[in-house]
């Protein structure tokens, strides 16, 4: 029954990706993209790549979000 957890998490990823392209508020996009990275770490672990999962958790969820928010604070929050 572990495949059911994987299926739910992959559906979660699809919804996150679609919403990240659709939203006009860039801060919301960054927050949703952060949750995408969080769930992607579990998928890497399920694909037998725990080292990539560690990197995804550190870089994808932490550093990338910080850099994106820094970029938003220097430019504009709303997409034109």
């Amino acid at each position, binding site marked *: 029954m572990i495949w059911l957890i994987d299926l739910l998490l992959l559906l979660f990823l699809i919804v996150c990706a679609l919403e990240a392209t659709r939203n006009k508020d860039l801060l919301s996009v960054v927050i949703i993209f952060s949750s995408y990275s969080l769930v992607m770490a579990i998928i890497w*672990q399920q694909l037998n790549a725990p080292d990539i999962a*560690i990197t995804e958790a550190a870089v994808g969820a932490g550093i990338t979000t910080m850099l994106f928010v820094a970029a938003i604070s220097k430019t504009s929050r709303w997409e034109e």
Partner: protein
Amino acid sequence: MLPESVFVAVGIILATTSFFCLYRAVKGPSAPDRLVAVNVIGTKTLVILVLFAFIYGRTLYIDVAIVYALINFLSTLTISKYLEKGRVTG
């Protein structure tokens, strides 16, 4: 010692309920709503990681969960500071 199916059932329930948090993250009218929703999603995924480590019996997966827990609060902290002050540095 509980049977393995109990842990799988807990994982399924956690993965299902994270969709409600995703609904709040997508629909939430203000940015703090989305922020708290993503924080809850992070905690749920942390528990799912530890459950997988227990189901497969591999201690390497615990390391992933530790790094995950260390990094998880950083993005929340950065976005909170941006919402309060309008800038990240300084």
